[in-house]
């Protein structure tokens, strides 16, 4: 009997609630949600008022960031200074979250051939040509007839998006923006390019190998540069990294480099998510 239950697709997951219990679960879930709502509402009402200068969060921590941030990090954009210099360890963790997410998506969606020949076979399969070991996943390689409206407008828009993305990344320490936001803009531009021109064109610019290398190099640079900076900081050594003149493009020590690294990781992550969902490889 047990075995039957296991094979039944309805019961793939244990703890499936059946019949009478279902309504009990629904009611208790509702009660719980309402209770949580009122609990959180009570908390919010009783919290210190927003913007009050006597609030506990208006303390020496924020004061130093605002008053000495420019001098100590060399970044005009205090937020960049905070996330990439004062609290760079947290931000390194955040980039690794993205890295871990890419790996998980690869595990789930990447389709690999068994041998090298299979892989080459899979590379050849584009647009409608099949007879490979991959016949069952061929729909992934199907690309719709390229749309000329999309193509023409993409030619106009994509370069602008990419340049703006680069601008946001490179000026992360001077003006609002930085690696995360600029990388997202870059990634969006690349995805638009890919949908307009198809994989065969996009692969000339970005393929699995280049994405891999860009991610690897950016993360490694981040890891090593920050390790150096942590090590010197903790051991009270001079890091020897010049801060430059605040406001100049080449200033603020490592922040510019780290912004570029984060931007590249974010852009590659977005692009590879899209490519993996579309056809199972980058």
């Amino acid at each position: 009997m047990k075995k039957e239950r296991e094979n039944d697709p309805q019961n793939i997951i244990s703890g499936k609630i059946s019949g009478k219990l279902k309504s009990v679960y629904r009611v208790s879930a509702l009660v719980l949600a309402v209770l949580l709502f009122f609990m959180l509402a009570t908390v919010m009402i009783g919290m210190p008022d927003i913007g009050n200068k006597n609030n506990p969060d208006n303390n020496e921590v924020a004061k130093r960031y605002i008053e000495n941030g420019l001098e100590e990090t060399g970044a005009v954009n205090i937020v960049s200074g905070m996330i990439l210099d004062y609290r760079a360890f947290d931000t390194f963790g955040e980039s690794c979250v993205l890295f871990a997410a890419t790996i998980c998506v690869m595990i789930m969606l990447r389709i690999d051939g068994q041998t090298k020949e299979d892989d080459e076979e899979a590379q050849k399969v584009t647009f409608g040509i099949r007879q490979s070991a991959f016949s069952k996943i061929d729909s992934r390689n199907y690309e719709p007839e390229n749309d000329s409206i999309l193509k023409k407008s993409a030619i106009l828009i994509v370069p602008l998006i990419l340049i703006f993305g680069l601008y946001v990344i490179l000026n992360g320490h001077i003006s609002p923006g930085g690696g995360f936001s600029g990388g997202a803009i870059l990634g969006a531009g690349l995805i638009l390019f890919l949908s307009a021109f198809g994989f065969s064109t996009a692969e000339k610019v970005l393929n699995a190998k280049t994405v891999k290398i860009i991610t690897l190099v950016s993360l490694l640079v981040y890891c090593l540069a920050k390790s150096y900076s942590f090590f010197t900081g903790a051991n009270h050594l001079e890091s020897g990294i010049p801060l430059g003149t605040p406001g100049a493009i080449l200033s603020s020590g490592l922040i510019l480099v780290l912004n570029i690294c984060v931007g590249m990781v974010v852009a590659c992550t977005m692009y590879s998510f899209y490519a993996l969902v579309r056809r199972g490889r980058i």
Partner: protein
Amino acid sequence: MDFIKNFPFFSIMLCMFCAIVNSVLGRRASKYMTRIVLGSVMCLSAAVLYYTIKSGSAYVYYMGHFPAPWGNEIRFGCLEALFSLFVSVIAFLSTVAGTKAVEDDVEDKKENLFYILVCLMTSSLLAMSYTNDLFTGYVFIEINTIAGCGLIMVRQIGKTTVTAIRYMVISILGSGLFLMGVTLLYTLTGHLLMSNIKEAVVSITESGEYRVQFTIVIGLMMVGLAIKSGLFPFHLWIPDAYGQSNVVSSSLLSSTVSKGYIFLLIKIFVRTIGFDVIKTTGVLYICFTLGIVAMILGSVMALHEHSFRRMIAYSSIAQIGYIYMGIGLGTAAGVAAAIFHIFAHGATKSLLFISSSEFTEGSHSKTIDDLKGLGHKYRFSAFCYSVGAFSIVGFPLLAGFVSKLLLGGAAIGHGPMQWIALLALAISTILNAIYFLKTVIYLYIPLDAEHTGKVSDMVPEYRMNCKEYVFGVLMLVVINLVLGLASGSIIDVINNGLEIFS
């Protein structure tokens, strides 16, 4: 500054570095790279442990050029070092012993991805144990969650994808509640650094302001971490996640990942907010009650389970209950017993999961009834599995016995709570014995004519030929014995660590 103080930082960064480099390595290279790195992290943690025990105090290490609260910092005493040593030892031995299982379950080209996730998971656990900042803790909780998801999914059968998605949904709810708790606590205290929060908390409790808010904040953080570690009403993801994924993933998830969250919770209770304040909020009663219910219900559910791997998974729910009961007692002895149980359960569960892989793979069957007579065929694995089963039941000389003794001892002197705790311990131990010893007896059942044919048809002891498996599993057995026999010195370290914790 002594050079050794850099070691915690080195071990975190080394794992991260290895994870990044693994993304371009092949399967063999990434396997050896991971082993080397985990092995060296083990040595580094052991050195830190020795250093902190010898000096008897804790140290702060700046992560950057700015002192905390402006910059990040990590802090290490002997308890943090002991936990890191535990994590790296279990991660190292599980990956070594389960090499064959990984090769069987994971696609060749995705094997390096598996090792990336192992490295990321280890580094995030190390960071969670060393961190002195709640937000850093949250960031690494995220890495841990996503790596856990990938570890479940890495054995690509349809069920694991569903399980992984379910794990992610439940786990993210937990992270969300924890994050809410952290932000609200920040609004109330103005700090994210643990030592500064403690100062602010003392002044808040003295003034008597924000009493309700404060209780709810602690509740949110506690529930968030309880969901992630799989305490009783939030346990639904456990049996599938541990029962269907690759054995190495199961053993890593059950013995290290869920323990990392509990360690962070203890850190928040003891170090960030302070046990005296926690006691006044009543959160500990919730921990205690849920722990007691989990101890009994987890065992009852395991008793009803037919599938072998899922039975071991259900027993994890009961064991998590033991730990929360220990914390819920609200004394230093209770917390020390809970921490010891973290180590004991981690060592035992990974031994059980990995040695069980031979029966489930070798016989191509997964129900408990199919275990009959397998002990005659797979002698080595059956012996090691039995050691694990005896340990979890609480057989003297082994790790489980000591932790049960400590939990029982910590419970005494608590008025009505002591009877509930002792009764629950007794019932849970009996139930444990019923279902674990049943599997051991099944393994060694004398073969009748019908079964002899069946068993001899089975795959020969192919894991026995794998020296890595033998080494890893034997080492896990040894760790169980060490935890059981040398418990005195380990408890001393835990007690010292708790003292310098706050």
